């Protein structure tokens, strides 16, 4: 009550200046609820309110409140985390439609993350973190580190990540026109990619001499763990000697399902923690390994590089921290967080932001830092102008497409073979 009294006195003085006692009762009545509302604000929100009022009364363009609040929310999120986004109710509706049109069997095989950008920037907003083996994107040589400037002519700065829908476009939507920026060159590379049916060979097993087995994981899809199990048995029989070691090639693999990395890690782990999910709103969730090792403790080498991201990093870290595998290659991408939609009350949309992060068995956060290999071998061609991914090479027929590099030409692979041959010879009875 004291507050109201004071504000009435203040108002009376103001009204006397304009010379109308008539205005007093009106002002006094409507002033109180606003006063109360303002009093309830935290000092920080009061600061916001103050700036809004000044801008409303003085900015040249007579800004409206919703426009300013929208800008405030975007400003808050953008600096917090490049992946954070605001979805207004209209965006949510559009996303629902995209999801309904989703066709999981078609994809161009590309995985992207948003870049930290200054406000109003019109530059590339997304960075490719990986492409799926044999996908249209990988064949065209798109790879980790490429920046996506435009899609179908639209600057990516204007696209919400949910709008990209790389994996969500039905077959009949046709091809994407990509404008890519690579390395220091500012000349964009224009590439047209048509979605194709996803390849079913998530895992390819190749027998190598001396009882070694190479498993290339092309994508962490729902079939992966089962496929791996299915392959191991028959392929072991084709080896020239009893299985002496396994090479798990996880280079240039990004998008994928976390339950598949957990499932695959569990195949080779008898005991221990695979990964722990940490959030601020709930207790940390550890994922322990179940007993049993499908290859009975035979040595494993995991190959990683800067294109090893997300689900693949969880698998690599689980095997490294449990001392089940030796990691060879170069540092991984460092993408070990969970982003989720947190809806706002009253159907006012949602925000998408990082809400959790994965910790390796020894408690290292997998986000940002990346995993260091036990034995570092820089890729042979670090040339930014190279036409293909590290694990690929230009196809011999010279049509500009990329294909998998042969084992013999793959220096990192050769290092892994040498390493496994050495330890299996050393441990021979």
């Amino acid at each position, binding site marked *: 009550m004291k507050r109201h009294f004071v504000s009435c006195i203040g108002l009376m003085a103001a009204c006397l200046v304009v010379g109308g006692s008539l205005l007093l009762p009106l002002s006094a009545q409507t002033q109180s*609820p606003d006063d109360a509302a303002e009093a309830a604000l935290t000092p920080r929100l009061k600061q916001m309110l103050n*700036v809004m009022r000044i801008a409303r009364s003085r900015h040249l363009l007579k800004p409206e409140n919703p426009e300013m609040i929208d800008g405030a929310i*975007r400003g*808050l999120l953008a600096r*917090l985390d490049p992946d954070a986004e605001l979805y207004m109710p209209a965006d949510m509706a559009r996303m629902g439609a995209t999801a309904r049109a989703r066709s999981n069997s078609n994809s161009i095989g590309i995985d992207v993350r948003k870049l930290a950008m200054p406000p109003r920037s019109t530059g590339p907003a997304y960075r490719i973190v990986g492409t799926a083996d044999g996908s249209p994107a990988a064949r065209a040589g798109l790879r980790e580190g490429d920046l996506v400037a435009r899609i179908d002519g639209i600057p990516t700065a204007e696209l919400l990540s949910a709008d990209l829908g790389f994996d969500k476009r039905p077959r009949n939507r046709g091809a994407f026109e990509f404008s890519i920026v690579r390395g220091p060159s500012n000349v964009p590379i224009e590439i047209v990619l048509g979605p194709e049916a996803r390849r079913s060979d998530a895992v390819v097993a190749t027998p190598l001499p001396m009882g070694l087995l190479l498993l290339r994981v092309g994508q962490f899809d729902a079939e992966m763990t089962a496929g791996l199990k299915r392959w191991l048995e028959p392929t072991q029989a084709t080896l020239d000697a009893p299985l002496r070691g396994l090479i798990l090639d996880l280079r240039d693999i990004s998008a994928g399902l976390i339950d598949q990395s957990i499932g695959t890690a569990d195949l080779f782990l008898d005991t221990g923690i695979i990964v722990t999910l940490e959030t*601020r709103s709930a207790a940390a969730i550890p994922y322990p390994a179940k007993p049993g090792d499908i290859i009975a403790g035979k040595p494993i080498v995991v190959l990683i590089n800067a294109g090893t991201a997300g689900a693949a990093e969880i698998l690599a870290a689980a095997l490294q921290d449990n001392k089940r595998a030796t990691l060879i290659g170069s540092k991984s991408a460092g993408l070990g967080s969970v982003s989720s939609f947190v809806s706002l009350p009253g159907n006012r949309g949602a925000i998408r932001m990082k809400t959790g992060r994965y910790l390796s068995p020894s408690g290292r956060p997998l986000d940002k830092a990346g995993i260091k290999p036990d034995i570092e071998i820089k890729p042979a061609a670090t040339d930014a102008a190279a036409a293909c991914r590290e694990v690929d090479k230009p196809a011999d027929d010279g049509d500009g497409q990329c294909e998998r590099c042969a084992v013999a030409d793959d220096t990192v692979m050769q290092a892994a073979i040498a390493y496994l041959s050495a330890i299996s010879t050393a441990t021979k009875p």
Partner: protein
Amino acid sequence: MMRKSDYAFWTFVTLAGMAGLTTVFNVSRTYSATSPNAEIYKQLDLFGDVLERVRSDYVEKPDDATLIDNAINGMLAALDPHSSYLNAKHFRDMQIQTRGEFGGLGIEVTMENGIVKVVSPIDETPAAKAGLQANDLITHLDGEQIVGLTLEQAVEKMRGPVNTPITLTIARKGKDEPIDIRIVRDVIRINAVKSRLEGDVIYVKISTFNEQTHANLVKQVDALKKQLGKAPVGYVIDLRNNPGGLLDQAISVSDDFLEKGAIVLTKGRNLEETQRANARPGDITDGKRVLVLVNGGSASASEIVAGALQDHKRALILGTRSFGKGSVQTIIPLGQNGAIRLTTARYYTPSGRSIQAKGIDPDILIEQELPPELKPKTPEKPRGEASLKGHLKGEKGEAGKKEERKEESGSSAYVPKEPEKDMQLQYALKLLRGEMAEPAVGTIVRADGTTEMRKPEPAVAEKPDAKPEDAKKDTPKQ
């Protein structure tokens, strides 16, 4: 605040009084309608919800003050490219810039391998008097290592209140032992004006419009006139790559060359932002010929000066099209919480042109020859106001003048370091010295030295001048 035009002092006081009244009337009227504040609170509520969610669910515990800083900045950045939030530190930095002076040592520094390197001590400053030399490496400040600090943080530590001491530890080539130098901070002025004699021509480069600019200009021109001992043949005022600054300084600098007439008109939503500045008698050049150099990096206050002198035909404008920022920002302090920089007005040149997203077209367009490493691989347009996302749209000029010009982005901002290679400057000097025939307004001088005439704009297409054959001649006659 930032407008100190005493020309319009009385008008201003009267208008301010009226503005105050109008505000009071508005207040009572809005309160009697259904409260729009209810809507503000609803909107704030949405923001509050987002803030709460981020606080509780974001993967790392965020810092509250940073969140709000970013939010306020986002709110203002959404309005136009030149509105922004200055937190307390940025506000202090900006005040230093506009005031043009600060407490410090007087050295230009860069950072090399995590260590601060002296580029040069500034004459007559404590650093110069204490014997600091170019290429000295500063390793410690008051005994604390610099490694680990950013250049900005190191500079911040070297600045401080006048008359306070600081000890620098220096590694100097040829000396094995580190040297400790104690320096007492003094007032350091950022010199916005650099000038010299180019033969009989007085050349003045204005790099920014801070509180010292007009005074520096007058002082230096005076000194050069005395040094020359006779009347100069003319003046070159170099505004290239001058990003602007204080409006009142732009007005004073324009006034230095004008005897009478309007300099600039600002027009905002409120009367206090709507003003007209007029020139007072007096011309520091005694009516001598003035040439002004502009390029794609000349913005805002620079464009006010160039526009005023161009409209009054007081100066010929040479160079390439200017940036095109035709808006005025007001700095509104928020007490302890820094300040906001808000776009509050557009400005118009004396003839009523708005240069927003168009820029000042030079009377004589002179292109610089770019060194090979700067030549774009693909023809990419240099950036200007028109290329900024969300820029204010250009609008028709004042007083019903027809302006059909399209928005155009900026021009090159390259200026060669060596004056001999600076084609724009050399052209200006030749012209002032009478070493070449007078070019017609609208002449274009290409980087390879060939000239042509600007194509007439559609609005004035009926003028049948500038035949293409004539345009090829070296110096078209008038």
